[in-house]
């Protein structure tokens, strides 16, 4: 037994390998938040009037929430109060981000993404994946743009969308996550600086996986990006986001908002591999990942599917949800959340059934190791008119070691008696029996742990695009190292 623990502990010393800092000249606004800062951000981005107005409304709402101390406190997470005046709300690499071609990109940035395994030169990319790279507050490069434009797919940074497609932005911005939604969503709406924008026109099946890679680089800044994806009637798009940050002793705030809209017969598949810096072994530093993600199945027969693999961040607070408004619409949520060392996660989903015969599936796999605390929080709400609604929820927890915790808070609200609900839950521990069995067959202790965990997560990995499933498995193994003790 003791050898088991030691081998694994040794591997724990392996460090977060995405923790480097890029030395690049940046432009940032002074710390603090007030209406002037918001006007400054909006002016820097040369935004039309409706955007500034929206931001100011959001800011005023947020300021009232802050005054009322309405930062959400119900989640099963603990952290020292955040001083929102001690954060810089805008940081951008100095060179102008509006590029004609990748050659104009700062070579230092290219090298950064290369180091992260995300080459931005199109010929080096995975065939079939277009990438938008967001560095601190701004999008620095979007690949395969022209190719996508030929079939009418818009894939660009949010800033560019505001300039080139203001009518689409104005029509859909805030329709799924209004600026009044919650404390962090309000904050995001006031200060968000960039993100990705996707519009897939009627009847188009987007031939590439669209992917955004988020990177926090600058110190004492927050990252507030906003993603908006609209799938018009009968269209399909698969989107993936990944994220990393340098190792820093202080916590950094990441408060993003993602809105998805699926019209009649449209389908959006949204996958996340979240690997923000999780803090060190003592729980120092790391990203506070306070994110609001929601999709609206607005049209009939539409479908939105969330898949997330959450291995990073000091704290994760995130509930990718589906509003099933169109009749026969389908919502799915597949999640793997891992907490090791002193990481905390409070994550899950909300499935709101409004339309008739709407269906939802939730599969959550929580893994706790070290002193990690992992909470599943889910709501299934069946509204009065949602005749024939169905939900299936499966919620499994795996414990590694005896200092971690797993918690489950499933909420179910049913207002229509025709609803069919299923809920399955389990909690298990990686046993010495399982480990010994695998090791007796020749597998090293750490490979044995990783095999058991990967088996546990299989149902979720199956939902990820192929290349990313492989990445996610590797990431999970690395994040787990040092977890038995």
């Amino acid at each position: 037994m003791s050898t088991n623990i030691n081998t694994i502990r040794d591997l724990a010393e392996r460090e977060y390998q995405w923790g480097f800092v890029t030395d690049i000249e940046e432009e940032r606004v002074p710390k603090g938040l007030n209406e002037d800062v918001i006007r400054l951000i909006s002016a820097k981005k040369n935004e039309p009037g409706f955007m500034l107005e929206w931001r100011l409304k959001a800011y005023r709402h947020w300021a009232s929430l802050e005054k009322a101390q309405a930062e959400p406190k119900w989640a099963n997470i603990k952290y020292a109060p955040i001083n929102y005046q001690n954060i810089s709300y805008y940081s951008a690499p100095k060179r102008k981000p509006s590029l004609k071609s990748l050659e104009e990109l700062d070579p230092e940035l290219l090298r950064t993404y290369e180091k992260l395994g995300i080459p931005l030169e199109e010929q080096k990319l995975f065939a079939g994946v277009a990438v938008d790279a967001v560095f601190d507050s701004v999008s620095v490069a979007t690949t395969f743009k022209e190719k996508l434009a030929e079939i009418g797919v818009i894939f660009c940074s949010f800033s560019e969308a505001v300039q080139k497609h203001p009518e689409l932005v104005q029509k859909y911005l805030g329709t799924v996550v209004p600026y009044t939604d919650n404390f962090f969503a309000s904050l995001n709406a006031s200060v968000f600086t960039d993100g990705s924008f996707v519009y897939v026109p009627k009847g188009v099946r987007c031939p590439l996986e669209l992917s955004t890679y988020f990177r926090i680089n600058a110190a004492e800044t927050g990252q507030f990006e906003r993603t908006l994806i609209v799938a018009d009637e009968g269209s399909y798009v698969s989107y993936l986001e990944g994220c990393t940050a340098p190792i820093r002793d202080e916590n950094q705030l990441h408060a993003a908002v993602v809105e998805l809209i699926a019209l009649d017969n449209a389908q959006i598949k949204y996958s996340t591999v979240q690997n923000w810096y999780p803090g060190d072994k003592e729980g120092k530093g790391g990203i506070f990942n306070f994110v609001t993600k929601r999709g609206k199945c607005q049209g009939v027969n539409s479908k939105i599917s969330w898949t997330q693999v959450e291995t990073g961040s000091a704290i994760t607070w995130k509930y990718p949800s589906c509003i099933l408004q169109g009749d026969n619409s389908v919502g799915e949520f597949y999640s793997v959340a891992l907490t090791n060392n002193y990481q905390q996660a409070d994550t899950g989903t909300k499935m709101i059934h409004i339309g008739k015969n709407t269906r939802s599936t939730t599969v959550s796999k929580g893994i706790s190791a070290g002193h990690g605390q992992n909470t599943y929080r889910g709501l299934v709400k069946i509204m009065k008119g949602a005749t024939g609604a169905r939900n299936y929820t499966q919620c499994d927890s795996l414990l590694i070691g005896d200092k971690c915790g797993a918690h489950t808070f499933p909420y179910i609200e049913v207002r229509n008696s025709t609803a069919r609900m299923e809920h399955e839950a389990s909690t298990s521990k990686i046993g010495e029996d399982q480990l010994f069995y695998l090791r007796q067959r020749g597998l090293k202790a750490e490979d044995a742990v990783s095999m058991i965990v990967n088996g546990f997560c299989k149902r979720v990995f199956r939902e990820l695009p192929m290349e990313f499933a492989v990445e996610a498995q590797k990431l999970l193994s690395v994040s787990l190292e040092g977890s038995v003790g």
Partner: protein
Amino acid sequence: MSLLEIRNLKVKVDNHEILKGIDLEINPGEVHSIMGPNGSGKSTLAQVLARRESYDVTSGEILYNGKDLLAMKPEDAACEGIFMAFQYPVEIPGISNAYFLRSALNAIRKYRGEDELDAMDFLPMFREKLKLLDMDEKLMNRSVNEGFSGGEKKRNEILQMAVLEPKLAILDETDSGLDIDALRIVANGVNAMRSPDRAIIVVTHYQRLLNYIVPDFVHVLVNGRIVRSGGPELALELEEKGYVEIDSETRQVTPA
């Protein structure tokens, strides 16, 4: 040189002495049966050989192929050619039998400096072994031991042994829970594996299995000691007289 040499092995579990001085020598090509009543220490011996770490070896030594077995981790012992068929094989949800077995084989090949096998190289060999154990290939796409019947689990153990081709195989009560047909299939599988450079240790309560796998040597383990050793006829004598009588006879001849 003998393949396995156990000298004066004493083992404690939870501060309770289970093995009280075992001496045993096994040569390549031999099949040894270790028989004994419940609680005699048979399984403990098997698990110590497989290097389970929750056992406290208080004295003695084990040489395997001339190397100090007690210094090896379970995976190293496995890679050096020791295989144990478990009495209670565990389930690994979400990992297919085929994938698991190929991973195990490749871990061993890697340890030995051999090339790893890809799925295409693995499959033909694997199919042949499946036939030997009369197992359905469909079972191999299912998760390791998940939803397997008791008999299927035991057959799966022998299948793994056939694929991993150990130098020393330890069958820990492989016959328990098997009906007569399954017993025959398992025994055939084991017999097919008998070879001049492989030794097999068959741990069992009952003589029944030894009708099918005929051992070269039988050792009777009672209360942490080997009280008698002999040829296959000893198993029959045991069946007739029972452990208590054999033990007391032994005590009269050689007082402890």
